């Protein structure tokens, strides 16, 4: 049963080590402490964004505003953190609250307003993106050194980025997802009607999922801020669709109700590392999109062995 649940994540589970080995053959130093830090920092933001996306996908929704929320958090954090411990702490708290509230707002509109998630979050993509520009009209701002190094440096051989990610998984994701509330999020995505007649609070489950998405996007924004030590309102735009790609690649179906967080997290690192491997292998940037897109196509096609192997059409249609 455990295996059944983790099987969809298998692709990412195998893919990530493979690509790291490939990287290593091109650049042996990648397995040094410094190299580990590069690897960790490179994918952590996308990993968090992918978790944000996954929270919503579990309810059979999709969140197109993830990137905008990452950008908004980055803009707010870099603008208001300042140098003092107090201002930085207050800003971090504010960013997390704003992210959660922004996500929850999406959730309220989706759950109470009964509007398709894709259009709600498309609209809020513009709104949150606009707010980010309002906060920070041009790139700039700064963060305290301790904040930047604290999140992106290494503790011994272990990259802090990885510790941060694991902390988020173990202190935020897993506790919520292994509570009744988390069960109800999965249940709503699995079969919303059944969830309702089983006495689950469907509206609350959805709002919590979207709020979680906002919180995780804010955490992604904070990590990105530490990494870039500055703010840029438009910085998040790439994370929306990449987070969807990571989620699917990580074995979480867009039909919702299934999936383990490990998959999207590993997939996020995989997708982030490809770019570096291309450089290390000396591949011209003109080929970059071909390789990235092509690889994604191959991986997606390879992951569909079930659709191709089942003799029962009804199962194929369900896959």
């Amino acid at each position, binding site marked *: 049963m455990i295996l059944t649940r983790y099987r969809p994540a298998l692709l990412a589970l195998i893919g990530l080590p493979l690509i790291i080995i490939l990287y290593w053959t091109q650049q042996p130093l990648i397995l040094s402490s410094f190299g580990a830090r590069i690897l960790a920092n490179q994918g952590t933001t996308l990993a968090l964004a992918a978790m944000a996306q996954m929270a919503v996908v579990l309810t059979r929704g*999709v969140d197109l505003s993830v990137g905008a929320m990452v950008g908004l958090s980055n803009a707010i954090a870099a603008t208001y953190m300042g140098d003092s411990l107090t201002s930085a702490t207050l800003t971090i708290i504010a960013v997390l609250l704003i992210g959660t509230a922004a996500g929850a707002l999406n959730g309220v*509109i989706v759950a109470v*307003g*009964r*509007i*398709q998630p*894709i*259009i*709600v979050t*498309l*609209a*809020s*993509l*513009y*709104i*949150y*993106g*606009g*707010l*980010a*520009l*309002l906060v920070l*009209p041009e790139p700039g701002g700064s963060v305290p050194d301790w904040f930047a190094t604290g999140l992106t440096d290494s503790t011994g051989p272990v990259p802090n980025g990885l510790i941060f990610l694991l902390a988020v998984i173990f202190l935020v994701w897993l506790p919520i997802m292994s509570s009744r509330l988390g069960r109800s999020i999965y249940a709503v995505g699995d*079969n*919303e*009607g059944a969830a*309702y*007649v089983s006495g689950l609070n469907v509206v609350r489950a959805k709002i919590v999922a979207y709020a979680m998405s906002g919180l995780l996007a804010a955490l992604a924004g904070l990590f990105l801020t530490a990494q870039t030590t500055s703010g840029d309102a438009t910085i998040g735009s790439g994370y929306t*669709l990449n987070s*969807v*790609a990571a989620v*699917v*690649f990580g074995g979480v*179906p*867009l039909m919702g109700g299934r999936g383990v967080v490990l998959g999207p997290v590993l997939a996020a690192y995989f997708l982030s590392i490809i770019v570096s491997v291309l450089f290390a292998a000396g591949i011209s940037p*003109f*080929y*970059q*999109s*071909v*390789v*990235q*897109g*092509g690889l*994604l*196509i191959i991986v*997606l*096609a390879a*992951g*569909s062995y079930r*659709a*191709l192997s089942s003799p029962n*059409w*009804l199962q*194929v*249609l*369900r*896959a």
Partner: protein
Amino acid sequence: MNATLQGRRSSPALLIAEHSVLVAYILLLLLVGVAIALNPAFGSLGNLKAQLLIASFVGIIAIGQTFVILTGHIDLSVPWNLTFSAILAATCYANGYGIPAAFGLGIGFGALVGAFNAVGVAIFRVHSLVWTLATNALLQGLALLYINGQPPRSTIPPFWRDMVTGDVGGLPMAALLWLVLAVLTIVVLKRTSFGRKVYATGTNETAAFLSGIDTRLVYLTVFIISGASSAVAGLLLTGYASQTYLGMGNDYLLVPIAAVIIGGTSVLGGTGGYVGSIAGTLMVVVLQAVLSTAQIGQAGKNIIFGGIILLLVLLYGRAARVND
């Protein structure tokens, strides 16, 4: 079962739901009214024609998206499919192919991309949201390689430029083409057995399949239509801008999708139609036009654009029921 679960809807919501297309057109008129009130010049014939011209690009892409979305899918490969098809056609023309051959190749390429998307969706059963996204990335790379890092050829047949922007009977040619394609689309969707199959597939693929409909063929066709309509839009844009250039499709990813959804087509598939998409297209284009010249910062424009889309779907998109 969920259908009955939603039994507590108030009746005004139901009323709006059943007439969502009508509501969309009423809102469109309201929007145009507001635009004219804000700036009387907006109502000038010249401007309305200019807006219609711009709307025809979005509207033609929305044809493909309407088909695809009606089957419950989405096509995110539009931007680079559009760009690549246009570049291909322009290059062929520059290399001495005749206009029919060059344009045919461009549209054929777009259709081929559509077919590739359909393979992923229908055979490999990958969700279109990611498969077409990957296609888009692949096309971007292939486009760069195809032009070998050079600016793409911009030898555009002058007649084409004049035709796209020129008038026939007071209407821009491009808008006329849109009108023809729109009528064709509406007829295909509402009156043909293929249209029926599109709705059936989008409503319940299993039931359609077990009724003897080859749903793979339906997907193939709708994605080919989407690919071809991206290419047609690309060719029109080429005439409009008198050139092809990288990134000419950047604006045409989310806006046509928004147009289709605002027009009342459900992203879950099976309900809606192109009559609504036309209203949606015009609404989005008018909205963008009003905002682009409004003397407020980009931040404000984004917020207002998002807010109005939200308002529109809150008004009548909410009746969309959760279906099993």
